[in-house]
C-alpha cells in the first residue's frame, strides 16, 4: 500500500527525473510556452551557441506587444515592432511553432494553450510569465519562471524545483447567480492575503469549484499567483474532458479515450494530507471588487473602503492611507459611490467567450457612461463573439471592439489608462501603475465591469441581471 497522495504529489512524481540529496528535483517539462518577453532567454542561447532541445514541445505566441487597433502590421513604435519581430525570428530560427500576429490562432498565451488543446491534464507546463498558473485549471502542473529558467528549459527541457507545500482551498456551497470564478478567487485572496499561499501548490476543490466551467476555473487558477501560490490546479473531471475533446493538439479518437482513463486518476486520494487547508462558504460570496493597490484589497460591492483612522495597527493604517491616497478615494467611502472613467474587458484572466457573454448579457440594450475597450483573449474567441453578435452589443453600448492581445492589462502595446484615471477592469493586477503610470485599477468580473460601465461607477451587477438570461 502506498501512502495516500494529493494531486500535486501525483503530478510531481510523474515528472521527477531525479532528486538530489539536498531535496531539489529535476523535472521533465511537457510544454514550454514562449512570448515576446522571452528574448532574454533566446539571447542566452545565442551566447552559448546552442539550439532548443525540444522544439516540438515549445510553442510561441505574440501577445504582450501586439496592437489591438488598426492594421496589426503597422506598428508605429519601432521598439514595440522589434519585440514582435524578435519572437518571430527566434521561433523561426529554432523551429518553434508560433501563433504570431497573422496566425488565425493568435491570442494571449494562457488563452491559446487551453484553446488549442496544448494544455492537458497531467502535463507539466512552464512559461516565462507569472500567470502560467492558469493552465492548472485543466489539471496540469503549471507555473511561471524567470528568464534564466526559460533558457534552462529551452536548453534541457527540464527544470530544477523544490517540492512545494501543498495547500487545499475548498469552496463548498452553491454560489448565487451572477457570482463568477473571479468573485470566488478575489474572495479567496482577500481571505488569505497576497502572500497567503507563497511557496504552495494550491488545489482548489469543493462543490463551488466543481460547478465552475473551464473558463471559470481558468480565471481561478490564473489568479492563484496573486495569493503568492507557485501554482493552482483543479482535478480534471468530465467538464475538463468535454472541453478538451476535439481540440487540435489534444489526443483524438481511441487515444483520447485512453488518455481520459488516465486523466481520471488525477485527483487527490481521500485521505491525502495537505500542509495547509483553507475553506470558504460559496453561498456567502457576493460580487467582489478591489479598492486598493493589491489584489488582497478586495471587498464585497456593498461594503465601504477602510478608514485608516479606525485601524489600531499603525503599519496597517499607513498601508491603508497610502493605498487610498494613490487610488484617490476618501476613507470610508462606499464602493458604489466611486465614479469610474473607463472600463477594460480583456486579459488572460477574463476574456474568454463565457466572459464576453457575461458582460454582453448586462450591456445588451444599454449604454456605457464611460469609454472602454473590449479585447478578446484570442483571435478565435474574437471571431466566435462576432458570430454570436456580441461585438455589436459592445459597440452599441459605446465600447471599442479591438483585436486580441494583452492590451490594457499591462499597457506595453500602448493601450494605457491615463494618469489619475480610474478603470474598472477584468484583469488580475491592480498594482500602482500597472495599466499605465498613475493609473487606478479596480479589479472585478466581466459582468461587474459591464455594470460599472452602465452605472458610471462601481455597481452591483445583480439588479441589472433581473429578468435577463445569463
Amino acid at each position, binding site marked *: 500500500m502506498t501512502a495516500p497522495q494529493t494531486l500535486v504529489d501525483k503530478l510531481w512524481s*510523474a515528472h521527477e*527525473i*531525479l532528486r538530489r540529496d*539536498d*531535496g*531539489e528535483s*529535476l523535472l*521533465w517539462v511537457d510544454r514550454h510556452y514562449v512570448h515576446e518577453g522571452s528574448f*532574454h532567454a533566446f539571447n542566452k542561447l545565442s551566447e552559448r551557441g546552442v539550439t532548443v532541445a525540444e522544439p*516540438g*514541445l515549445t510553442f510561441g505566441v505574440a501577445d504582450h506587444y501586439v496592437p489591438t487597433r488598426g492594421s496589426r502590421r503597422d506598428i508605429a513604435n519601432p521598439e514595440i515592432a*522589434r*519585440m514582435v519581430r524578435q519572437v518571430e525570428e527566434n521561433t523561426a530560427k529554432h523551429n518553434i*511553432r508560433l501563433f504570431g500576429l497573422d496566425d488565425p490562432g493568435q491570442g494571449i498565451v494562457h488563452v491559446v494553450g487551453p484553446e488549442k*488543446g496544448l494544455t492537458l491534464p*497531467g*502535463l507539466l507546463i512552464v512559461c*516565462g510569465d*507569472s500567470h502560467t498558473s492558469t493552465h492548472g485549471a485543466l489539471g496540469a502542473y503549471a*507555473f511561471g*519562471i*524567470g*528568464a*534564466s*529558467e526559460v*533558457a*534552462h528549459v529551452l536548453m*534541457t*527541457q*527540464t527544470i*530544477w524545483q*523544490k517540492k512545494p507545500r501543498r495547500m487545499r482551498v475548498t469552496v463548498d456551497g452553491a454560489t448565487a447567480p451572477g457570482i463568477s470564478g473571479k468573485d470566488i478567487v478575489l474572495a479567496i485572496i482577500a481571505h488569505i492575503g*497576497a*502572500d497567503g499561499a*507563497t*511557496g504552495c501548490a494550491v488545489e482548489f476543490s469543493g462543490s463551488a469549484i466543481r460547478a465552475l466551467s473551464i473558463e471559470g476555473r481558468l480565471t481561478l487558477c490564473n489568479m492563484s499567483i496573486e495569493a*503568492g501560490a*507557485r501554482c493552482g490546479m483543479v482535478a480534471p473531471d468530465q467538464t475538463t474532458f468535454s472541453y478538451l475533446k476535439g481540440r*487540435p*493538439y*489534444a*489526443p*483524438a479518437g481511441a*487515444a*483520447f479515450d*485512453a*488518455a481520459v482513463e*488516465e486523466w481520471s486518476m488525477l485527483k487527490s486520494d481521500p485521505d491525502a494530507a495537505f500542509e495547509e487547508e483553507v475553506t470558504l462558504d460559496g453561498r456567502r460570496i457576493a460580487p467582489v471588487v478591489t479598492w486598493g493597490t*493589491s489584489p488582497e484589497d478586495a471587498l464585497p460591492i456593498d461594503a465601504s473602503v477602510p478608514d485608516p483612522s479606525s485601524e489600531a495597527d499603525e*503599519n496597517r493604517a*499607513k*498601508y491603508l492611507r*497610502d493605498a487610498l491616497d494613490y487610488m484617490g478615494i476618501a476613507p470610508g467611502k462606499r464602493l458604489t459611490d466611486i465614479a469610474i472613467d473607463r472600463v477594460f474587458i480583456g486579459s488572460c484572466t477574463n476574456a474568454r467567450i463565457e466572459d464576453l457573454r457575461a458582460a454582453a448579457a448586462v450591456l445588451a440594450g444599454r449604454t456605457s457612461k464611460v469609454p472602454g475597450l473590449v479585447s478578446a483573449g484570442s483571435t478565435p474567441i474574437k471571431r466566435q463573439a462576432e458570430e454570436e453578435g456580441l461585438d455589436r452589443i459592445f459597440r452599441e453600448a459605446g465600447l471599442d471592439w479591438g483585436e486580441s492581445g494583452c492590451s490594457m492589462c*499591462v*499597457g*506595453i502595446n500602448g493601450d494605457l489608462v491615463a494618469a489619475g484615471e480610474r478603470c474598472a477592469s477584468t484583469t488580475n*493586477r491592480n*498594482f*500602482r*501603475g500597472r495599466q499605465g503610470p498613475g493609473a487606478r485599477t479596480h479589479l472585478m468580473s466581466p459582468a461587474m465591469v459591464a455594470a460599472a460601465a452602465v452605472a458610471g461607477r462601481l455597481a452591483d451587477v445583480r439588479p441589472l441581471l433581473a429578468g435577463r438570461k445569463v
Partner: protein
Amino acid sequence: MEKFVKLTGSACPIDQSNVNTDQILPARYLKWTRAMGIGKVLFHDLRFDAEGNERPEFPINKPAWRNPKIIVAARNFGCGSSREAAVYALCDHGVRCVIAPSFGDIFSGNAVQNGLLTATVTDEEASEIIDALTANPELPVAVDLEQQTVVCGNRTYAFAIDPVRRTRLLNGWDDIALTESYRDKIAAFKSKDQTKRPWAIPAANP
C-alpha cells in the same frame, strides 16, 4: 555567477509591503536589454514623478541610500510579474541582498540565478531594522550568508534561506552546467515516459 559569502554596506529601508516587480521595474522598460543600463531605471516610478523629477521622499533618493548594497522591506517583496529584469535592475544598480519577511516566489528564484540574496526575517525584525536605519541612515548593515546573520548596529538577526539556494549562492553555481551532467538520466526518462504517457506528446501539428 558571482559568489555571495559576506557583504557589508549601505542599506536602504523601503517601508512598504507588497513591493511588486512592476514597481521595481516598470513594464515599459521590459523592452530594454541589460546593456541599455537597466539599473538606471530601478524603481523608476517610485523614484521620479511624471515630469522626471526625483521624489525626495522615496528612500533611494536620500543621500545615504543612493547606491545601496542592501534593501530592507516589509512583507511580500517582489510579488507580481515573473520578469527577471526586475532582478537585473536591482543587481545592476549595485544591490546584492534584499531583507524582508517574505518574497514573491518567482522573484526569489530569479534572484538566486543572479547572485542576489533574499534573506527572510520576521515582520518585527524587518520593522526593527527599518526603524534603526531610518533613525540612523549611515548605519552599515553586514550580511553573512555562511552564518545566516544580519548585523545592524548592535543587533544580530538570524535570517532564513532555503538551504539549496544558500549553497548555490555560496558557490556561485550555474544550473545549466549541472543539468548537463545528468544528460543520460534525462534521455532515459524521456524514452520511458514516451511509452508511459503517449498522450503527453502534442498531436501532429494540425
